């Protein structure tokens, strides 16, 4: 297949990249780093940008820096392989090491970057299809393709017919782990460099997923020093265990003292909503408590109330919701038992 025609620019500095993005008409420029999300989407003709901005040459966006006072700073172009292998990540932020190692396969992780993984396009069974396939149905809310011969000549959402909201799912693995570690993102734009909580990057809307202006660039991720050493684990449901997008993902990060009492806890989920989400009740339920089957079950129920899986994938919503519950239970128990080593056997839902 051939990609749609576009011009390519390769800025070497953040300032140069921002200038190019500002000059482009809104929606007409796409940023490329590893290419593992953008290129397949271009192949499917999901976008037709005039301009592609290749930021891989910006050396300032690479690398991982740790300081006990400032915490961890991860440059946006850091590859998922670099992150997965970094000793500081494996030792101090096990939930992130596990989540990153669960992304696709090793060759994709050699290309894919943390910035790209956080900015993934949302996915849906009715959207991630060839142009021919989509046109036959008249497209969908996210990408209308009017076709008078289609079964529904009017553009509709095939997931929730009659609805005006797009349920395309945010299907990444690193964001729930980073949410569980209270991460912030550094955004560079025409008004300078700002830092905001990662959770504010996501709008929970399948069509308009990111709170990121067309003239802004995600340049780094920060994890605060207070999150270092938290026990953590990530559990992921997927059809093909070697390479696949998640169908449900649960990240847990906790501080537990020698008596087994929880002092801080975050539970975040992905691949069941249009955004990766922190489960709001989890912390209040867990802090100050010791492990008990009743407590773990109560948290698992709170998780299934936050997750809203619909028919956006080949797997059923019922199965994905049930696996949220199972994964939450297993992840919490593993954290309490301190089975938080990245070498543990992958939990695949079997």
């Amino acid at each position, binding site marked *: 297949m051939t990609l749609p025609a576009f011009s390519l620019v390769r800025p070497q500095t953040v300032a140069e990249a921002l200038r190019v993005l500002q000059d482009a008409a809104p929606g007409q420029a796409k940023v490329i780093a590893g290419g593992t999300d953008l290129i397949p989407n271009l192949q499917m003709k999901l976008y037709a940008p005039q301009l592609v901005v290749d930021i891989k040459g910006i050396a300032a966006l690479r690398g991982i820096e740790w300081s006990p006072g400032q915490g961890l700073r991860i440059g946006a172009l850091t590859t998922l392989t670099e992150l997965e292998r970094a000793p500081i990540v494996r030792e101090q932020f096990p939930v992130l090491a596990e989540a990153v190692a669960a992304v696709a396969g090793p*060759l994709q992780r050699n290309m894919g970057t943390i910035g790209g993984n956080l900015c993934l396009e949302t996915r849906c069974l009715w959207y991630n299809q060839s142009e021919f396939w989509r046109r036959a149905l008249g497209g969908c809310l996210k990408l209308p393709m009017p076709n008078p011969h289609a079964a529904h000549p009017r553009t509709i959402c095939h997931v929730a017919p009659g609805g005006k909201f797009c349920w395309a799912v945010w299907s990444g693995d690193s964001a729930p782990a980073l949410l569980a570690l209270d991460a912030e993102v550094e955004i560079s734009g025409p008004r300078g460099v700002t830092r905001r909580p990662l959770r504010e990057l996501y709008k929970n809307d399948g069509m308009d997923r990111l709170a990121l202006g067309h003239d802004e660039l995600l340049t780094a991720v920060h994890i605060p020093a207070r999150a270092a050493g938290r026990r953590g684990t990530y559990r992921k449901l997927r059809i093909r265990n070697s390479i696949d997008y998640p169908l449900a993902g649960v990240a847990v990060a906790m501080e537990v003292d020698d008596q087994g009492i929880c002092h801080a806890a975050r539970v975040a989920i992905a691949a069941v909503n249009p955004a990766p989400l922190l489960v709001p009740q989890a912390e209040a339920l867990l802090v100050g408590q010791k492990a008990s089957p009743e407590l773990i079950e109560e948290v698992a129920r709170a998780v299934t109330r936050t997750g809203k899986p619909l028919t956006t994938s080949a797997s059923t919503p019922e199965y994905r919701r049930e696996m949220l519950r199972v994964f939450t239970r297993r992840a919490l128990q593993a954290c309490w038992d301190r089975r938080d080593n990245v070498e543990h056997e992958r939990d695949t839902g079997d």
Partner: protein
Amino acid sequence: MEKILLKLCVNGETCQVAVPPNKLLLDVLREDLGLTGSKRGCDDSSCGCCAVLIDGTPMLSCVALAASYAGAEITTVEGLAPPGELHPVQEGFAVSGGAQCGYCTPGFLIATKALLDRNPQPTLEEIREALSSNLCRCTGYMQIYESVRLALERWQQVPRTAAASPTAAQGSQ
């Protein structure tokens, strides 16, 4: 669409090609440079048939814009050993029957070469993990893992600078 003049370093040779900015590295290798060893399988980065080494790291040339890799050192399956010779990894696959239809083989060879460069003593679990981006639709994975194990033995026997000769492969059967 205006073409871009690119300098690519492929298998140790620098070459100049004029390509449109939307052309994939896989297509430049196959169409402009005649290196048809790298295969187009899934075309959406989920099968590993198009794997090449970029600055020593295995990557998927079907999701790489050629213009993005100007100046990088690219190694395709054709560049693993000099013409007429086999790399120990290729020997391992040839002797152990690591190829059935052969379509996925170049990708497996590239991923195996990268693994042994990085980790000369991989366990079976590490081999499986390193090859988990590569799909074999003949499902001959056991022979492939056996090939890697054999390649590992040969790899340790030959001096790292020189590739083994094809006669060495026949001698051990």
